[in-house]
């Protein structure tokens, strides 16, 4: 571990050049004030106990009794059609937009919610994100059937609208041993990461405290950053005619604008892998078969690296070839590069130059899932999930034959906020565009209807689709609810998000098989690729426009309410104040007095206007007298106003 300091003679550092640094005093001695090591620092003499203080994140994990946890921040959407959805890379790393958090707790079921709430608050502080909104019971759910095998101690929540930016990345980088200062993470130039199509930062914690064995117990922290970048030549190399369109070549320095200056000092291993997926390798092999003259340049001997299609600038240290025992389809190839031997003076800069145009497609998930809204208007609508078979599903092994029938198992996990009142009984199932009874297709279903302002609606379905089916569609009708005025978010007019549905295919495993190798076991990412995990895909986030009040309404409401109150209290006071006999007495006493001639004239005039015989002067007198003075006053004010307007306005 080392601490670096630098002297700045720039204008911003020297108060506009007024306080120049005199280098004649060198060498300088630096004193650090308020220096805080983000890790637990241990002297040789002192014991390790202080590292158990609660402000270290690893102790937080213990405090919150998290057995397993995953947090992901994602921007952009994973395009399953273009970027694939079957290999472990896309299946495990594609995440829904925004924040997704799930955690399994090692506590009794009654306490899970409390621990979840505490965890969300801590994470929201750690990652400068509004994860604390997941605290409310309307935002998280407890899947049981489809998400992961759990026993009621799993909580799952998403924030589809969370904007992901550098302030989320910085705390994530802080967890890395060398932050973004050295090693592989030096590539993490913020502008180039955020310029890409998609990026997802993921943090996964697993704690295995149950074992008594000292080696096993501990916490594993796994950090993944998945980025889909556009080569910098993407925009300039635009050609309209497809024939001459060669796919852009790239290098690490051209994509990231940086190189890898060797490995991080405290890292155990530091590797870069280049994965050529099945489709590409297959296409390349076909090309080679066609061009017989390249036969000498065989794939087996040189591992593709300087074949006729592309050229890799750095010689790989290792080449892994995926072994497919089941059927002789094309398999993917991974090149491994160790960056340990590189240094600042000779940085690692991997590049790939294409020579000929190759068109290939990534391996797709067995069914392509898309979700959309149906209907129009602010009253009701329907959510539809449509699954369409992709090419890859046709040639897949049918190892999931149950009772002689070939069936494809699909799990759907869908959370719907409470203000979208889904009627689960309206679930309609169509297989190959024919309506089907629910029992034919749905193997198991678990529904927890939403409670207003308490919990979201959750639907988990395990489907058994017939193998050859080309398409399947599900639709659920819903009513749009009304929200209380203070439940609307600040940008209510944008609409409300329905989080992504999770579609998983448990009968398919996204894993790669490599021939046994010593090196594989040392590489965490490759061993991760070899793990068996179901193929997952997330659907799009949906935007539902709800009825939103006119937010200038409160002003109008205040005006109306004030008017009503004034009228009410005015008349009430009037009733309370008035004494019935008293007024008549006063009137009668006033009647005795003599009336002025103007008031008499006015009363006569008003009587004429009303078209009635002239009233008794005795009774009409007080009003007309008052009105005379009133009229005089109004006239006075009006004349003042007119003169003011005329001369000064």
């Amino acid at each position, binding site marked *: 571990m080392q601490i670096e300091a630098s002297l700045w003679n720039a204008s911003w550092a020297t108060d506009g050049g007024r306080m120049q640094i005199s280098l004649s005093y060198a060498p300088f001695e630096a004193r650090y004030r308020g220096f805080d090591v983000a890790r637990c620092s241990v002297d040789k003499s002192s014991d390790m106990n202080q590292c158990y203080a609660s402000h270290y994140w690893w102790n937080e994990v213990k405090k919150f009794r998290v057995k397993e946890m995953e947090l992901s921040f994602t921007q952009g959407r994973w395009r399953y059609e273009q970027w694939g959805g079957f290999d472990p890379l896309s299946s495990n790393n594609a995440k829904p937009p925004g924040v997704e958090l799930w955690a399994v707790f090692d506590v009794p079921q009654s306490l899970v919610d409390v621990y979840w709430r505490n965890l969300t608050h801590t994470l929201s502080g750690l990652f400068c994100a509004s994860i604390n909104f997941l605290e409310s019971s309307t935002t998280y759910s407890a899947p049981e059937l489809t998400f992961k095998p759990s026993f009621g101690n799993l909580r799952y929540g998403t924030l589809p609208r969370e904007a992901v930016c550098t302030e989320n990345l910085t705390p994530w980088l802080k967890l890395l041993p060398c932050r973004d200062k050295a090693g592989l993470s030096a590539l993490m130039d913020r502008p180039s990461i955020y310029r890409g199509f998609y990026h997802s930062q993921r943090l996964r914690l697993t704690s295995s405290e149950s074992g008594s064995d000292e080696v096993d117990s501990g916490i594993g922290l796994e950090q993944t950053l998945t980025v889909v970048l556009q080569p910098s030549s993407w925009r300039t190399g635009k050609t309209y005619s*497809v024939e001459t369109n060669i796919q852009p070549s790239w290098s690490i320095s051209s994509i990231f604008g940086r190189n890898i200056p060797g490995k991080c000092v405290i890292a155990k291993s530091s590797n870069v892998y280049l994965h050529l997926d099945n489709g590409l390798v297959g296409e390349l092999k076909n090309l080679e078969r066609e061009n017989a003259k390249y036969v000498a340049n065989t794939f087996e001997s040189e591992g593709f690296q300087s074949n006729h299609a592309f050229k890799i600038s750095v010689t790989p240290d290792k080449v892994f070839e995926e072994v497919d025992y089941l059927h002789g389809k094309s398999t993917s190839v991974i090149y491994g590069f160790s960056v340990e031997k590189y240094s600042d003076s000779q940085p690692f800069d991997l590049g790939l130059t294409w020579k000929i145009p190759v068109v290939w497609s990534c391996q797709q998930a067995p069914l392509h899932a*898309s979700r959309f809204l149906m209907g129009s208007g602010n009253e009701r609508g329907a959510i539809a999930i449509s699954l369409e078979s992709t090419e890859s599903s046709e040639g897949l092994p049918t190892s999931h034959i149950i009772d002689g029938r070939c069936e494809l198992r699909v799990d759907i996990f869908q959370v719907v906020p409470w203000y979208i009142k889904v009627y689960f009984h309206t679930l309609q199932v169509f297989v190959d*565009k024919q309506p089907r009874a629910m029992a034919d297709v749905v193997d198991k279903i678990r529904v927890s209807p939403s409670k207003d302002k308490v919990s979201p609606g959750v639907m988990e379905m395990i489907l058994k689709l017939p193998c050859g089916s080309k398409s399947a569609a599900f*639709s659920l009708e819903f009513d749009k609810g009304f929200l209380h005025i203070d439940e609307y978010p600040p940008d209510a007019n944008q609409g409300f998000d329905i989080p992504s549905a999770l579609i998983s295919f448990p009968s398919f495993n996204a894993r790669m098989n490599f021939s046994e190798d010593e090196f594989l076991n040392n590489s965490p990412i490759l061993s991760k690729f070899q793990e068996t995990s179901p193929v997952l895909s997330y659907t799009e*986030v949906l935007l539902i426009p709800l009825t939103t009040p006119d937010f200038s309404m409160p002003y109008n409401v205040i005006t109306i309410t004030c008017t009503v109150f004034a009228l009410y209290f005015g008349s009430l006071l009037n009733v309370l104040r008035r004494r019935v006999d008293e007024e008549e007495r006063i009137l009668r006493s006033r009647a005795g007095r003599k009336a002025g001639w103007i008031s008499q004239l006015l009363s006569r005039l008003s009587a004429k206007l009303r078209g009635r015989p002239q009233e008794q002067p005795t009774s009409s007198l007080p009003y007309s007298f008052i009105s005379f003075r009133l009229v005089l006053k109004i006239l006075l004010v009006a004349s003042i106003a007119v003169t003011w307007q005329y001369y000064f306005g």
Partner: protein
Amino acid sequence: MAETEVSKKRKRPIVRLAVLLLSHSVLVSVICCTAGVFGLLLLPVLAKNTYISENALMPGSASSMLSNQEVSEANKLIKELNNLHSNPLGATTESHGIIAKYMSNLGAQVNNHKFHPQLNQFHPLHFFSGPDSGVMQENSTRSLYGINTVGIIRAPRGDGKEAIVLVTPYNAVKGGVRETLSLGIAYSVFSLLTRVTWLAKDIIWLVADSQYGEYAPVAAWLRDYHTPAFSNLDSLNTETCHVGNNNFESKISYGIRRSGTMAAALVLGVAYGNENEDTLGIYAEASNGQMPNLDLINIVHYLAVHRQGLRVKVEQFHWLLNSKWVKSLGEVFESLGKMVKTLNPDWKLGISAADYVEGAATLASSLYHQALGVPTGPHGAFRDYQVDAITLEFSLRISFDRLDRRNDFLLHGGRLIEGVIRSVNNLLEKFHQSFFLYLLTSPSKFVSVGVYMIAFALLVAPLPVVAASLYAKTLDLNPTSEKDKSATSNELGSVLQSWKWLNSVKTVFVVHFWGATVSLLPYFISQIPDSDPTTNFSVWILLSILSLEILRWILVSPSSHIYGLPQGEWATLKSATISSFFIGLGLMSVINFATAEIGALLMVPMALMAHPLKLDVRGQSLRSILRMICNLVLGVISFPPATFFVFKGVIEGFSGINAGDFWNWVESLWAWNSATYLYIGMVHLPCWVLCVQILLHPC
């Protein structure tokens, strides 16, 4: 006794005011009606300048990125499509392939959408109901179909929740430069948008196959986008519709591709103009007088005028531009404005007479098109799904044959569309800041609901006053005043007297019921095969009269003379008529304000003035003769067909009027599900019949 007298005199002020109003109902109605008409005429003067209300839109703040490169690419597409049209055989199918190829070369997702054009039919139960999937398609002929081509650009970093729609109607059968130019504009913008990084919303480009009209393909696509039919009973999209000899063509799917919620839609069109400069026409009226948010019109206007130097126009009544009385009215207002200005220079009421005439012509057109309730373009289909949409129609001063001229046009048009899309793209929320209820008096001036409502309110205000005063008068006419109250011998009679209004209300109800029947009759008449509009119209009128007589015979006549005292009956009848008309107008003003406004303008004077002709003839004073003449004139004018023919005659000249025109007009109203049709059938016509009945009352 003295105490009661005092209390009587000291009535609440509000009651006294009401009594005063009732006793001067004639004066009140004259003043209010004049003020209402005057207020309507004053609207062009009161119009405010438009302004961009939503700050996030920021139109024109970014410099345009569209360059000549995109334009030359667009020219390639235009050329290829035009070449295709030189051999018209198979031009339709191939043009779709070419457009789809160009789209997918840009990296957009392309799909075709097949639809059957729907014949406009009258569905009496489909008023106000939402668009239905599948059901309507059963009736349509199978052999006719059109193919829309849809291209979608996914926003590179967006989450795909929202989309902006660009529509270009394209008639491949007709062909020609005019058809392809709008495609050229859209293509140049589309090709730019595939490469920009600032896109936050997806872009959907719909090339609508407009060989069956421009509205139908857009409506069909929107219906399938929003309410897809999962169960494939009609097998619309799966059947192989045509054998694509092109290998590429077969790859394009017929399944509809979707993006998120639509934020806004722009429909592009190109017209041959014969004006002095390049103009851009904006059409905004959707069904039932719904308008898109004013901000959408504002940004288009701002960018067109201040960035691209186009002249923007909205629809006008050209016959109003030359009319003498509007001009003189404008001069009066101009001089009035000048006078006001001498009092206070801050009061900016005055506009020049020429401006007034322009404003009045635009306002009248705006009011008319809203009142008609028929959308003025394909954008109307979007409004049914709460999407703000407008149609932009470019018109050029010269032909497009010269290439440099065409390039210039493509560049300007493309930059305008790019700017609008960029502004909408900036929008975080949906359009909600600016007005939805407004009338345009010029592309940059509008009258908001708060102002134009006053004219309507003034027109309608005398209705309840007159109704109440008439009812009060009939009570006074009856011998049930206070003096006779002591004579309790005729108790039953007095009770019956006080319930006399029930009879009139029954008449009113029967006539309204008849109105509903009349509005349903065209459904049955239209079933008659091979009939021309004139006969249909005459059959309709005959059946209407017949049904009115039958209803009267069944329901009214036996009970009309039970209670006697016919001298006050016309007054209660009028009172009930006016009340029902008032309620009808009030309801209509919520549904379609412009219809209610025009309806009030036509019918309110008639309803207020209606007075038995017999009494007027007997009266023989100047006042009663004047009233009689007015009644006769108004009675003719406010009859809906008569109104239509007078209006048509004023606009187009009286020479070419055919009785069947009215039938055609009404047919178009019901085909578009316009609420105006319901208004005419169930409010306006019954009121007119009742007024005529009052005029002919045998007193």
